[in-house]
């Protein structure tokens, strides 16, 4: 009796049914046909439930870049650069455009897009951007949480990117664009953005202290981008390095 094909062979069959060498076996094996049916059902599940919420991130991801560490929240490509001391929040009430970018992070999804002349350009972790680039963010938290978006530069200056005012972070009940955007300060050099979202409020002073400890000791520390320590254990965090170059 011909042994039942492995899942790998069934996958190859699904990809090219016309030229499948296991077709004769499938025609006479109820169990394998049931396996195949289950695989098709999962394929439908992917197209219905997974593809729509992940395709933007997959499409946006530069092909030549490796994934960041799991704890990171990817800031998808865009000409963005974090503002250091002179961050300006620009009120732009309209929602994300067609160049919306979303990338999965640790319990959090962040979408970032920046305005260029007439379109958004994606930037990856560590990519160069204009020192005075404008950027926007969209966040999709796994659970309702309070969000902080901050940056740190090679001078050790920690800047609030979002929310611009208030204490404890901005409440995020679900996915959505962050109001406003950020204009970079025009100063060349590395800038690291940290996104932190926690179920409970985190004082900005505590976050600032954590950011400074992790990446506030010069350009090398900014580029190294260690995870933030001393935050609540249930806080999701992510980071992205930007190299501001004229």
């Amino acid at each position, binding site marked *: 009796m011909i*042994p039942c094909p*492995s899942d*790998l062979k069934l996958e190859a069959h699904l990809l*090219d049914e016309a030229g499948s060498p296991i077709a004769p076996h499938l025609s006479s094996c109820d169990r394998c046909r049931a396996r195949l049916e289950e695989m098709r059902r*999962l394929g439908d599940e992917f197209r219905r439930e*997974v*593809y729509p919420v992940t395709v933007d991130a997959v499409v946006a991801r530069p092909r030549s870049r*490796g994934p960041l560490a799991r704890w990171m929240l990817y800031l998808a490509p865009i000409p963005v650069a974090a503002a250091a001391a002179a961050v300006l929040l620009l009120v732009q009430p309209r929602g994300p455009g067609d160049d919306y970018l979303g990338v999965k992070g640790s319990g959090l999804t962040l979408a970032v897009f920046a305005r260029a002349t007439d379109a958004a350009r994606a930037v990856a972790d560590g990519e160069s951007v204009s020192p005075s680039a404008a950027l926007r963010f969209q966040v999709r938290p796994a659970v309702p949480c309070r969000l902080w978006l901050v940056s740190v530069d090679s001078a050790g200056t920690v800047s609030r990117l979002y929310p611009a005012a208030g204490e404890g972070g901005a409440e995020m009940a679900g996915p959505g664009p962050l109001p406003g955007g950020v204009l970079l300060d025009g100063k060349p050099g590395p800038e690291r953005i940290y996104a932190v979202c926690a179920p409970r409020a985190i004082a900005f002073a505590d976050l600032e202290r954590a950011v400074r400890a992790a990446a506030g000791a010069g350009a090398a520390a900014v580029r190294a981008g260690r995870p933030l320590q001393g935050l609540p254990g249930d806080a999701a965090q992510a980071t992205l390095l930007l190299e501001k170059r004229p």
Partner: protein
Amino acid sequence: MSDEREETARIYRDLGPAVYRRCLRLLGDREAARDATQEVFVKLLRDTRRLQDRETVIPWIYRVATNHCLNLRRNARRRGEEELEPALEVAPGQSEARYPDRQLAQKVLSRFDVATQAVAVGVFVDGMEHEEVAAALGISRRTVSRKLDRFLANARKYLERSTS
């Protein structure tokens, strides 16, 4: 959407199901599988020519997704997150004599490096022949046999210790 982005989306739509099924099988959790699928596909996109080779793309997907998900399981275990460590379902046809205790075997599995885990999963969970595992993982059949022998020897030792 640009032509390149449309092409990437099309490839993702066509091959994403294979990645998702693999991740779901190894992670046993739909949300984790969804996230892993995205992460794996980003890795696969580093070589789009390979993604378009219908002859070899499925074994390549299998290898990248398997390594990625086994790493996720290992990392989850290190963090004490048990939910990402479901018992792996033994492939149909695998005799109980070769895989006597799923829970015990899973504990043994986690004690090995990811490469050895991938071999053991290929044989015991996926029910593949040694040759097929070797081809899928891009290693020699001899390496498969060696890693499997080591896995089984240590699994037996672990079994003996746990029952004595």
